[in-house]
């Protein structure tokens, strides 16, 4: 996590952070921000999948919100319309979304660069159009409500307080899984593909297959977030899954650093605070800011704002230790 602190301080730091995270949702602390924090958690899950795909493997997706949406709709429809247990619905959603992305990926990952970007954008739009048009099952543009909450035995996640823990449990789990993958044989293969596809292929890495697999995994992450999203809001409509939503996810990944797992939290937090707190009620003013962020970050610090800040801290630390 904090690669620059290679001593026991890390345990203290992680422990303190976890303690803060546990205390956050209490009313006397930051309880009024629980809804915001839940959305940050959900967006982090989708963003970290996107980071694995874009930052580590070097493959663009401009339609990631669609897979978030597929997870959300499958969970909503199964649990509400068909009365399936929400947990089971969530599992089915993840499997179906993953399988769907695998199939799609098998077709479109023959494309590269600009063509791949446009294909993912186009597919995202088609899925969004389907959410709107298949109104008999999705409720159309108006959406559908009355989706049940999640519960374990008799314990229901009925309050934002409880759902905060639920969402962040999943979020931290996915972040840990992502970190483990990045630091493994698989992670090296993904980064190799980003570095040079020809060289990766020459040392026995099945480039096409890894791309498809990581795309499917990122879709599964998005789907899990989507399921949690509908069981939190108890309502789903096409609006949060369109083109702008996909671009917003790219913004989160870019701010956090495309090739940074923990940066995803930073990216999701910055973006959500900007959209839902600072610029709330200013229409789409946030898109102007996002446009600027995308341009400025990619031009001047393509490794991402979070990673840049981290580097500055490392430099500062090494300077101060030299003085001592």
């Amino acid at each position, binding site marked *: 996590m904090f690669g620059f602190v290679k001593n026991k301080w890390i345990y203290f730091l992680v422990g303190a952070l976890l303690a803060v995270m546990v205390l956050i949702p209490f009313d006397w602390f930051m309880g009024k921000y629980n809804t915001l924090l839940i959305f940050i958690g959900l967006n982090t899950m989708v963003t970290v999948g996107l980071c694995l795909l*874009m930052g580590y493997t*070097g493959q*663009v997706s*401009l339609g990631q919100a669609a897979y978030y949406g597929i997870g959300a709709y499958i969970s909503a429809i199964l649990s509400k319309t068909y009365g399936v247990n929400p947990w089971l619905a969530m599992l089915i959603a993840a499997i179906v979304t993953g399988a769907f992305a695998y199939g799609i990926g098998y*077709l*479109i990952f*023959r*494309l*590269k*660069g*600009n*063509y791949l*970007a*446009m*294909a993912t*954008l*186009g*597919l995202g*739009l*088609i899925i969004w*159009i*389907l959410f709107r*048009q298949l109104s008999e099952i999705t409720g159309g543009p108006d959406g559908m409500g009355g989706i049940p909450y999640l519960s374990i035995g008799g314990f229901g996640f009925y309050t934002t307080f409880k759902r905060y823990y639920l969402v962040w449990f999943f979020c931290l789990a996915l972040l840990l899984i992502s970190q483990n993958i990045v630091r493994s044989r698989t992670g090296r293969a993904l980064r190799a593909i980003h570095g040079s596809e020809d060289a990766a292929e020459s040392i026995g890495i099945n480039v096409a297959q890894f791309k498809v697999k990581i795309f499917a995994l990122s879709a599964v992450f998005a789907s899990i977030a989507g399921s949690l999203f509908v069981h939190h809001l108890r309502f789903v409509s096409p609006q949060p899954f369109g*083109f*702008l939503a996909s*671009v917003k996810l*790219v913004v989160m990944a*870019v701010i956090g650093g495309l090739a940074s797992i923990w940066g995803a939290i930073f990216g999701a937090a910055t973006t959500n605070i900007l959209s839902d707190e600072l610029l709330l009620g200013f*229409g*789409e*003013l*946030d*898109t*102007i*800011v*996002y*446009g*600027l*962020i*995308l*341009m400025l970050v*990619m*031009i001047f610090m*393509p490794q991402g704002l979070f990673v840049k800040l981290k580097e500055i801290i490392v430099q500062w630390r090494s300077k101060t230790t030299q003085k001592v």
Partner: protein
Amino acid sequence: MSVDQFLQYLISGITQGSIYALVALGFTIIYAVTRVINFAQGEFVMLGGMLSFLLISSFGIPLIPSLILAVLFTAIIGAIIYLLAIRTAKKASVVSLIIITIGVSIFIRGFTREFLGVDSVRPPFFTGDESLTIFGALIRPQALWIIGTTIVVTIILHLFLSRTMMGNALKASAISTRAAAMVGIDSRVMALTAFVIAAVIGSIGGAVMAPLVLTSYNVGVMLGLKGFVSASIGGFKSPIISVIGGITIGVIESLAVGINWGPFTSSYKDAIAIVALLIILLIRSGRLALEERAD
């Protein structure tokens, strides 16, 4: 579908396709000179339409000066995009350039929404709205303006590229930046020119289309996507094939909607174009891979 209906859909398809053709021309000229796919290309079209509406309907400026101003303004935006965003990031990877131009795109879109609102707008028709009848099919004068403009723009662009010094320099730059530099052609000037030309063509398209099909702050993405499909048919190489591609996409879309059965209805009009995109890309993917190796 009767013959009359078929003709009607065909004309409507050619009209729509002409707009896609203009977007495709913009993609093609920028890609040829800079190897950048400008994901903000659709926003030029949006700006052309929205600005001409603003000038004509809100400021009451006559048609011709309004059009000139709208195109001029968009051209300046095109130049600024190149100078501020593309040139400063000249060593960026393909992924970075995609993200940068997407950033440009939503920036322009957000700005337009802030200042010009969210409503769809319709500037007045250039020359009234008395439909003509051709072989039993109705055609509106504005559609003729759209088709005519596309033909004229294509011819002018062709003459520009083949008959003028500047055009030859652009073509040379498109073939090899280094070779062009050796004979004294500044690739940055060429790239700037390409962005300006793309902005001009896009905004002209936006201005002539708006009276017929309306426009709003968010039409850029879909137009960009359809223009991209059209240009990808010719691999972003040939302006003429891009134009033909645009008209083909327009006609396919229009005829598919004309079937009016199952998924072939106007609700899925955009989806049909996207499916066409995917099919074209996948068919071409084998060749694309080879071309990339050759580069």
